C-alpha cells in the first residue's frame, strides 16, 4: 500500500519478512497516510477497538468464575462480586463496558452518516461495520441473559419469542432456539457458548473492516478524495496515534466514572432479583442501547409486522450507500441533508426514550410517528434530497485555497469540535 517499499534493516529481519511480511504490515500501519483534518469524531474507531479488547479480556476472566447453569448462574455472579479478587471491578468493567461500547459505536455510525463515509468507494467498510454492529447486539443480548436475573430471563423470553411470529415454522424454530419448551437451562448454556464465540467473530470482522478501510483510505470531514501521501495527509503514527490516545483517555475517564461511582445506573434493578419463570416483571425493558428497536417493534400492533419492521430498521442500513443519491459526501456541504440528519438523530433518541416507557397512550403515538419517520428518512429523504439539493461549493483539497465563496476547509473541524 505504501508508496515506498519497506526494507528491513537487519538481515534476520529481512529473512523473516521475506517469508512472512509482518514487518511490512507494521510499516504500512505506522506510515498509513491519514487525512490531517480528521476531527475527534474520527477517534471512535480506536476507542471501539479498545472497547472490544476490554470486553474480551474481562470476559475471559469472568468466564473462569462464572457457572452457566440456571440454578447456579446468579449465585456465581455474586461469588464473582464478593469472593473473587477484584471480581467486582472486572464485572463492572464488563457490564458498563458493553454500554460504553454501544455509546461509541452509535457515535461512530452517526459520524459515518454525517460525513457520508458509507458512500463509494467505502460501501464494503460500511457493510462489514453493520455486520459487526449486528453481532454486537447479539453478543450484548446474550451477555445480559447470563446473570440469570429477572430481566435476563424475561428479556430472553421476549426476544426469543419474536421468532415464533414466523408463519408455519415459528414455534418449531423457537423451541429449537431454546433447546427446551421455554427459556431454561439449555438456553442459558448455549447463550453462554455463543456469547463467548461472538466477540472473536467480531474481532475477525474488525480486521476486515480495517483492511477494507486501508484500501481507499479514510474519509475526512471535507469528504473529498485526497492524494495519498500528500501534504493533505499525515502518517498514522505518531499523529493519529497520539490524537486517538488523547481521545481514548477522555473516554476512559467517563468509563471509569461509571464503573467506580455509578456502576448500576445503566442496568435495571430487577436484574438483581434471581430469574423466576412464575413472576413477570411489571415492565420488561431491554438494555438502553436496544431501546430504539424495541420501540419500533412495539409500535406495530401485529407481532409479525413488528418483527419484520424491527429487522428492516437495521437491514435498511445495508443498502444505504445506494439509497443516498448525492454526489457530495460530507454533510458540511449539504445544507438540506444536514437538517434531516439532525432530525434523524432526534428521532432515534426519541424512539429510544419511548422504548423505555410503557407502550400506551402518548408513548405509542410517539413510537409510531418515530418509526414512520425513521423509514421515511432512508427511503424518501435520502434519495430525493440527493437529487434536489443544491450543495455548497466544495474545496479542491484540504490544504489548498477554497473556491471563492465556498466554505472554509477547516470549518468542518472547527464547527464540530464544539459539538
Amino acid at each position, binding site marked *: 500500500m505504501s508508496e515506498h517499499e519497506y526494507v528491513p534493516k537487519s538481515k534476520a529481519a529481512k529473512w523473516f519478512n521475506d517469508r512472512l511480511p509482518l514487518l511490512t504490515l507494521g510499516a504500512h500501519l505506522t506510515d498509513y497516510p491519514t487525512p490531517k483534518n480528521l476531527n475527534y469524531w474520527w477517534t471512535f474507531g480506536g476507542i471501539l477497538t479498545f472497547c472490544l479488547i476490554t470486553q474480551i479480556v474481562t470476559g475471559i476472566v469472568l468466564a473462569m468464575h462464572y457457572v452457566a447453569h440456571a440454578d447456579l448462574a446468579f449465585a456465581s455472579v455474586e461469588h464473582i462480586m*464478593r469472593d473473587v479478587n477484584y471480581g467486582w471491578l472486572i464485572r463492572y468493567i464488563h457490564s458498563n463496558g458493553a454500554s460504553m461500547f454501544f455509546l461509541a459505536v452509535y457515535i461512530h455510525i452517526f459520524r459515518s452518516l454525517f460525513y457520508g463515509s458509507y458512500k463509494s468507494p467505502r460501501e464494503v467498510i460500511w457493510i462489514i461495520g453493520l455486520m459487526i454492529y449486528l453481532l454486537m447486539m447479539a453478543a450484548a443480548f446474550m451477555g445480559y441473559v447470563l446473570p440469570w436475573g429477572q430481566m435476563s430471563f424475561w428479556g430472553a423470553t421476549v426476544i426469543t419469542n419474536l421468532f415464533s411470529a414466523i408463519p408455519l415454522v415459528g414455534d418449531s424454530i423457537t423451541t429449537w432456539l431454546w433447546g427446551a419448551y421455554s427459556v431454561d437451562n439449555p438456553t442459558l448454556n448455549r447463550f453462554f457458548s455463543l456469547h463467548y464465540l461472538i466477540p472473536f467473530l467480531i474481532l475477525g470482522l474488525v480486521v476486515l473492516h480495517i483492511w477494507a478501510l486501508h484500501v481507499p483510505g479514510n474519509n475526512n470531514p471535507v469528504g473529498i478524495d485526497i492524494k495519498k501521501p500528500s501534504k493533505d495527509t499525515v502518517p498514522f503514527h505518531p499523529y493519529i496515534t497520539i490524537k486517538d490516545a488523547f481521545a481514548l483517555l477522555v473516554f476512559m475517564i467517563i468509563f471509569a466514572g461509571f464503573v467506580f*461511582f455509578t456502576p448500576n445506573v445503566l442496568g435495571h*434493578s430487577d436484574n438483581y432479583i434471581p430469574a423466576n419463570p412464575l413472576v413477570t416483571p411489571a415492565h420488561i425493558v431491554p438494555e438502553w442501547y436496544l431501546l430504539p428497536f424495541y420501540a419500533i417493534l412495539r409500535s406495530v400492533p401485529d407481532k409479525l409486522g413488528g418483527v419484520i419492521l424491527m429487522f428492516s430498521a437495521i437491514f435498511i442500513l445495508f443498502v444505504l450507500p445506494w439509497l443516498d443519491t448525492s454526489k457530495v459526501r460530507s454533510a458540511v456541504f449539504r445544507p438540506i441533508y444536514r437538517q434531516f440528519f439532525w432530525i434523524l438523530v432526534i428521532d432515534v433518541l426519541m424512539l429510544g426514550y419511548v422504548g423505555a416507557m410503557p407502550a400506551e397512550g*402518548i408513548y405509542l403515538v410517539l413510537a409510531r410517528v418515530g418509526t414512520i419517520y425513521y423509514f421515511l428518512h432512508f427511503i424518501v429523504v435520502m434519495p430525493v434530497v440527493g437529487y434536489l439539493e443544491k450543495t455548497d461549493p466544495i474545496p479542491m483539497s484540504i490544504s489548498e485555497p477554497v473556491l471563492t465563496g465556498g466554505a472554509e476547509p477547516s470549518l468542518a473541524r472547527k464547527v464540530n469540535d464544539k459539538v
Partner: protein
Amino acid sequence: MIKSNIKLLVLSFLLLISLRPLQSAEMVDPIKVDWSFKGLTGTFDRASLQRGFQVYKEVCASCHSMQYLSYRNLGEPGGPEFSEQEVKAIAASFEIEDGPDSQGEMFTRPGKPSDKFKSPYPNVQAATAANGGAYPPDMSVLVKARKGGANYIYSVLVGYEDPPPGVTLDDGVYYNKYMAGNKIKMPNNLMDGLVEYADGTESTVDQMAKDVTTFLAWAAEPELEERHKTGVKVIIYLVLLTILVYLSMKKIWSRIDSEV
C-alpha cells in the same frame, strides 16, 4: 448552523424528559436520606453497620435469608469491621448443618466464620408457605434489586400507616405508603425500643430503619468503600495522563502546519 441544531436537539430531549412525571404520578417518591455512603467518597458509618447487623439478626433474620454473605464478611475492611473474636462468636452462635460425615449422616455444629449466613428456612417453598404465600426476599442484594435503593428500603420500613378510608385489606396484608400498590405482606416489625443497642444508642423506629438499611446497603455492595477509593485514584491518574498526552499531542502536531 450545527449549533442551532444542537440547541434543537437539547430542547426536544428536555421536552421528552419532562413527559416522565405523567407516567409515575401515582407512586409516592421514597424519602431522600443523606446517607454517609452516598457521593464520590462516601463510606459506611461503622457504628451504624454494627447496629444494623444487630437489627437484622434480631428482627429480619427470622424470615429473611442473606445467603450470599458469610460471617467472615462481618470482619472484613469496608464493612461492620467486627473484631476477629466477635466474628467467631457471632458465627458460633448459629448451629450449621454439615455433612455427610463418614457414616453418611448429616450433623450440626457451631458456625465458623467461613460459613454462609444461616437461612431461616430450608428453601423458598418453605419460606413462602410460612409467610402467608409471600416469599420474604433474600436480602443479600436487596438494595440493588429495588428502584430507589437504600431510600426505598428505608421508606418502606417507616412507611406503615392505617389504610385510608375506603381501602379494605385482607388478613395478613398491611398498608404501606411507599410500597408499589401500597399493599405489603410484611407486618410492621419495628417499634420503639425493640432492640437494645450494645452502644447505648436509643432504638427508635427511625434509628433502627436507618441502621438496618445501612447494613443492607453494605451487604449489597461490600466493595463500595474500596470502589470509591480506587475510583478517585484511577480518575486522578487518568486526568494527569490525559494532560500529558494532550501536551504531547500539541507538540507533535505543531510540527505540521495544522491545529488539532
